[in-house]
């Protein structure tokens, strides 16, 4: 399971970076989405995957009695997903607007702000 997830994380990062390096705006967004998911999966993987009971302590004891799965990575991923969701939706609106105003999808043509003036 860990090995499978590790390969998955690597694939997501690699393809995300590959897509960011393309010249099209739409591919840029796809790349960002892939990278975001890769990062979330990495948190999940590094939070130790344990096949245990839910992290609830029975009322009559003070400590965990058996192996439990760590709830914190899931809380982190949840937060990260919500945030990246917001950012991605902003990015999509921005790209739509940029395409409408600039009339191009090609990042190499968007270099007016870098020009020497």
């Amino acid at each position: 399971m860990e090995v499978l997830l590790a390969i998955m994380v690597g694939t997501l990062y690699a393809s995300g970076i590959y897509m960011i390096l393309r010249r099209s705006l739409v591919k840029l967004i796809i790349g960002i989405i892939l990278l975001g998911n890769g990062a979330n999966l990495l948190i999940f993987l590094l939070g130790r995957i344990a096949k245990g009971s839910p992290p609830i302590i029975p009322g009559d004891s003070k400590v965990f009695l058996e192996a439990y799965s760590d709830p914190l990575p899931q809380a982190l991923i949840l937060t990260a997903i919500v945030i990246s969701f917001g950012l991605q939706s902003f990015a999509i609106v921005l790209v739509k607007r940029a395409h409408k105003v600039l009339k191009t999808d090609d990042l190499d043509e968007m270099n007016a702000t870098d020009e020497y003036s």
Partner: protein
Amino acid sequence: MTEQLVIYPLITQMLLAIVLMFFWSRIQWQRVVSILGSLINLGVAVWLFVTVWQGGTLSIQAGNWEAPFGITFVADTFSATLVLLTSIAGVAVSSFSAGSVIPARLKFGFFPIFHFLLLGLNGAFLTGDIFNLYVWFEIIIITSFVLLTIGGEKAQLEGAVKYFTLNILASIVFLTAIAVLYGLTGSLNMADLASKVAAVENRTLVQVNALLFLVGFGIKSALFPLYFWLPASYHTPPSAVSAIFGGLLTKVGVYALIRVFTLIFEVDPFLENVLLAVAVLTLFSGAVGAIVQNNIRKIFSYLVICHIGYMIAGLGMMTEMAITGAIFYLIHDIMVKTNLFMMSGVIYKIKANHNIRKLGDFYADHPKLSLLFAIPLFSLVGIPPLSGFWPKLSLISEGWNTDNFIVIAAIIFASFITLFVIVKLWGEVFWKTGEKLPEVRNFPYFNKLTGIKKAQMLAPIIFLSVVSLYLGFGAGNIQNLAERIAFELMDNQEYINTVLSK
């Protein structure tokens, strides 16, 4: 009871932003509420600073979950100082935007978003939890996206695409670094991480993790190979937005770098070399970039990059004296860069142009304004009694003590180029006989504005100039403050004990 004080700067900004939302279409009210609220926030920040200065580090645990399990907010002298500086810049920019930003932009919720940005900045300075720091960073970048694109001009959208791509990339690298750190230690509380990271046996992995943090924060603070988004985007939004970006946004990255590398990771010789190399290259490339530009705001953008190098050089040398220099420089830089971008906004309102080749005659037409603008310009260069001089002195002397002669050379080179660029700018904009610029139709020229708006634009520049002068002439006090911060950063036991309530 005093512990509660730590989150007051957050609460005031958040309440202010929410109140402003109720005045969504009533712009006149928004201007008044924003300025008044910023003043209240400044008062709260001063209160926090004085309390921390007198009583030492404060911390509060959200929901009474004891550290390291809950989310912690900490105010040590470093955090409190930065919150104070944010509030000072916040008052200035709030007043400046009330005078300068056009109503069409204000109608899209400029002020609420601006205060959410300040909320994010205060949060990032006060949090004591590394994942919470990530969340505040996201609040900062999402609000800065909106401020950057508000108005939707062509250049703004183009700059925004670059800005947002690289900032999201930085966030993802930061998130990756947090994931690895959590996998290594099983903790997210910064004070708790300090001892747990030191106990990790696989040092190579710790080094890789530290480098991931360096890259993530390096993109945000515009370090050498990672700064290309900054000159592409900082000159596109209204000057009020550029002012808060240039003054504070890159400094959050510097704050995070200083915090992470003094508290969590030990700086070993390898990391020290990386930091110093990056600092030297940042100083060189920023300075050289500033020479060739003709747009005032692009010149300042490159100077923002260049001067980040001083602080990273101080961090890289990693002695108490060098950190003192870096902190002093940070304090000076926030005030001066905010002021410079506001100044460029006033010049633009008067002449309707940003190109220094086309501008001119400024001293002949506006002698008093020119004298006022001389203060931030020459503070930036660091002509001796002014504020930029003292931190450079400590950095150079510390470079001498630790035999980092290349760093000294880079600092002197960058200071020299800054002087050259400012003298060129002064000659072109203020002294040269300018050509007759064509009248732009429907442009809100400065002399057509009402007296209140003129005052709203000039008062913050005077205010920040006075602060800059104080930083220079009262350098002894600031030096004391910076020394105390550096002492607390190097000997972080008080921070750790307060958070973990030992």
